[in-house]
């Protein structure tokens, strides 16, 4: 056996006269970042391919007579690096001078003014005066799509947008056209973007070349209050930072890269907040008087509901409570407590979108089997079954793509139709819903060779087939983790908080009989139907048309229109609390704005309980969450993580659930990138950009 010298584990170099050590293969620009020395750059963006086009990061290195770009130079043994030598400083200054020759000085009207990287760099490194006296090249601004606008004059051609679109999101909608100084960014097909409309290109733009139509010219960055909260739409639980001015959300982004999604957001996260300001928002409680819903005061509405509830309770009548996929954990917990201890009923359910209960049961006794978001980026191999991730779970799709890009993860996609994962998957198969388990056997050999596997599955895998899937996974002989895909912002939390008749919070069997959602609607003896943030009567009617219906919602939905009392509820952006995402991580909601006349669902429960004379405990989100931490298994999460806006993983029950769960009721709504359940209707942006809705396949 030939002896080989082991590669060095540490590299010694000199940076600005200081001896430093680093790992082999470190890029010079990353080394300086680690050491807190700024080497400015426009085109370098961690995680994406290298460009070396902006030439801002030129530094002096002893091994080269020329200045070298820090973004492509790897630190080698004995390298002597100067980042602040007169030559480097002068080079930076001249690059900025070149950049500004054709860049308009319209900072006062530019949306990026105040948070512009070019502005910052010119302020710090640039020359005080311009020597350019000739006429600047100018091209007029043009829209790329209903949300993306492009101003070629401001563009510095750093290609960040092109890369984030292609490499990050796998969309490849943007490219470069023309040559030399006439070069500009353009949609790859036609003159309009036919893309996810995620707006990542807008956020990643270091200057004001790409701007968003929803935010353009409305305000300035320093005029806004920035509130970090969790996106109200799908189950992925992206952290989003809302820019708020005068109690209005002006924009959403996550430029500080905090949270589990770093800077990822899809169109719903970045632009879909506009439902919050929709003119149809309910702003007053309504009571059915003489057959019509009429605005009344809170006290009158609460009194009416309390009286009816007490009356039905006293008469031993039948309650049916429909809970939400979007309300916070605190609200869910308080609601089930209200139902079970306050009203003495177990008839509580919600629209189930993923069979988490069976998964937890099937995995009983095994450690570390439920994947977290970080696992998606770290796993060596992943298997996607029956879900178009890029449409339904964009963050999960993004993380897998990122994993493949950075770690060459092997992705397997088994879906009924073509998906975006096909482009880079190790293997793909077109398998109809319900036939996946049989088809998986064909991949057994290949999958068993992987060092580890992460299985994501949609709503077609439930009950018996889910148990078969777990059997399959556990028989591979490799570490396997699972993610049961669910639909909405707190679908996972709804199950954890026991919003089903068969379970109390924390997967504890309730042991009492209770009506499920379809059973409530089919029950002709039902006295009261209490709907919180759901729309069960959207496509069907009730068996008992005389039932007293109470609805808490943001809008007058089909269910609310049928109600006897409607309470205007606050949205997720207007309340404090926590939600649990698809991978079981708890994140905080922060109230960013307030809509006049609304109350949070938690407050409505509390006031109603008080009005009814019930003792349900105080209804502040903090107090209720404290109760959850003490009473709900798996939710004793680390508070500092939550408090600082992080995602705290829940530790799920590790034992048999011992309950016959109604897996047959699990049914995903099949939302796309451009839909978000009943909220879709109230988001103007989602409605204007959805060029090709309904691309998603659904079982017939």
């Amino acid at each position, binding site marked *: 056996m030939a002896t080989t010298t082991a590669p060095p584990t540490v590299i010694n170099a000199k940076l600005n006269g200081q001896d430093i050590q680093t790992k082999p293969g470190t890029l010079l620009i990353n080394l300086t970042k680690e050491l807190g020395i700024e080497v400015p750059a426009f085109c370098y963006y961690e995680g994406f391919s290298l460009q070396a086009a902006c030439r801002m990061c030129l530094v002096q290195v002893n091994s080269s007579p020329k200045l070298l770009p820090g973004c492509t130079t790897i630190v080698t043994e004995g390298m002597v690096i100067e980042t602040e030598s007169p030559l480097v400083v002068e080079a930076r200054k001249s690059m900025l001078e070149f950049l500004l020759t054709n860049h308009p000085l*319209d*900072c*006062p*009207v530019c949306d990026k*003014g105040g948070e512009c990287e070019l502005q910052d760099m010119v302020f710090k490194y640039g020359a005080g005066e311009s020597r350019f006296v000739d006429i600047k090249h100018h091209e007029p601004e043009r829209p790329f799509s209903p949300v993306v606008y492009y101003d070629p004059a401001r563009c510095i051609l750093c290609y960040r947008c092109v890369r984030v679109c292609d490499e990050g999101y796998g969309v490849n909608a943007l490219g470069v056209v023309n040559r030399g100084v006439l070069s500009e960014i353009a949609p790859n097909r036609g003159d309009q973007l036919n893309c996810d409309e995620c707006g990542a290109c807008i956020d990643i733009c270091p200057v004001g070349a790409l701007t968003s139509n929803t935010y*353009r*010219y*409305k*305000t*300035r960055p*320093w*005029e806004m209050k920035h509130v970090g909260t969790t996106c109200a739409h799908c189950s992925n639980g992206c952290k989003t930072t809302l820019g708020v001015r005068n109690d209005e959300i002006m924009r959403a982004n996550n430029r500080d890269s905090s949270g589990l999604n770093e800077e990822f957001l899809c169109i719903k996260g970045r632009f879909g907040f506009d439902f919050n300001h929709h003119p149809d928002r309910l702003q007053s409680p309504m009571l059915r008087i003489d057959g019509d819903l009429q605005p009344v005061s809170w006290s009158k509405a609460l009194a009416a509901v309390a009286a009816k509830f007490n009356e039905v309770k006293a008469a031993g009548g039948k309650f049916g409570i429909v809970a939400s996929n979007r309300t916070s954990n605190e609200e869910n917990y308080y609601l089930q407590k209200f139902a079970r201890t306050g009203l003495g009923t177990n008839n509580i359910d919600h629209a189930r979108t993923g069979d988490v209960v069976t998964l937890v049961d099937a995995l009983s006794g095994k450690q570390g089997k439920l994947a977290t978001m970080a696992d998606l980026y770290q796993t060596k191999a992943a298997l996607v079954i029956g879900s178009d991730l890029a449409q339904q779970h964009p963050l999960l799709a993004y993380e897998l793509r990122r994993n493949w890009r950075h770690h060459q993860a092997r992705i397997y996609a088994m879906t009924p139709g073509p998906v975006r994962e096909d482009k880079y998957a190790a293997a793909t198969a077109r398998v109809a819903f319900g036939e996946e388990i049989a088809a998986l056997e064909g991949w057994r050999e290949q999958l068993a060779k992987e060092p580890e596997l992460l299985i994501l599955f949609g709503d077609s895998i439930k009950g018996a087939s889910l148990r078969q899937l777990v059997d399959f996974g556990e028989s591979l002989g490799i570490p396997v983790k699972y993610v049961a895909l669910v639909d909405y912002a707190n679908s996972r939390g709804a199950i954890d908080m026991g919003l089903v008749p068969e379970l109390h919070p924390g997967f504890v069997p309730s042991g009492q009989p209770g009506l499920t959602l379809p059973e409530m609607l089919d029950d002709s003896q039902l006295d009261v139907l209490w709907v919180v943030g759901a729309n069960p009567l959207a496509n069907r009617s009730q068996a008992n048309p005389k039932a007293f219906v109470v609805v808490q919602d943001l809008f007058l939905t089909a269910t609310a229109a049928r109600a006897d009392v409607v309470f205007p509820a606050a949205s997720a952006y207007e309340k404090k609390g926590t939600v649990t995402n698809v991978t079981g991580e708890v994140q905080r909601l922060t109230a960013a704005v307030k809509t006049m006349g609304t109350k949070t669902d938690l407050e409505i429960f509390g006031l109603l309980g008080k009005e009814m004379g019930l003792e349900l405990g105080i209804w502040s989100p903090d107090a209720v969450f404290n109760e959850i931490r003490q009473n709900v298994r798996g939710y004793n999460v680390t508070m500092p993580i939550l408090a600082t806006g992080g995602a705290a993983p829940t530790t799920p029950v590790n034992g048999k659930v011992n309950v016959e769960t109604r897996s047959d009721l699990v049914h995903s709504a099949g939302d796309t990138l451009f839909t978000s359940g009943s909220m879709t209707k109230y988001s103007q942006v989602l409605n204007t950009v959805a060029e090709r809705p309904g691309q998603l396949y659904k079982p017939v």
Partner: protein
Amino acid sequence: MANLTEILSAAKAITKGMGITFGEMLQPALTEAYPDGPPQFQERYRGAHVLKRDENGLEKCVACFLCAAACPSDCIYIEAAENTDQLRISGGERYAQVYNIDYNRCIFCGYCVEACPTDAITHGHDFEIASYDTSTLIYRKEKMLEAPQAGKASLAYDSQASNGTSGH
């Protein structure tokens, strides 16, 4: 002897003093007859603000919010809106839909004028803004805006109608 010296020096002082008095009597008076007569201002006097227009009659203000950012007493409130081809208010892409100055709070420091990149906000010479009703002290844009000059385009105009061109 001592008395004579004292008398002489006193007389000298009186003469000197009265000399100035009589000399000044012949000069034009500096005292202003305000409020009976109009007050005189130095050019750089910082009075109530005036929002300027450019040579085309468009508003100079592009709603960059820099005056509001510079204001130490936080008395400027702006809401921005986008110019369109149909309705062009300012020369830039953006204009101030709402521009309020709260004179309850304004300290006339002039920082807003200094911060303005388009020379849109200036100090006028109006200072008679005292009021018994503080709610009248929030000046709206319409009150501060310079009147359009005769023969120039007015406040807002339809560029398509007036120029016959399709925008800029």
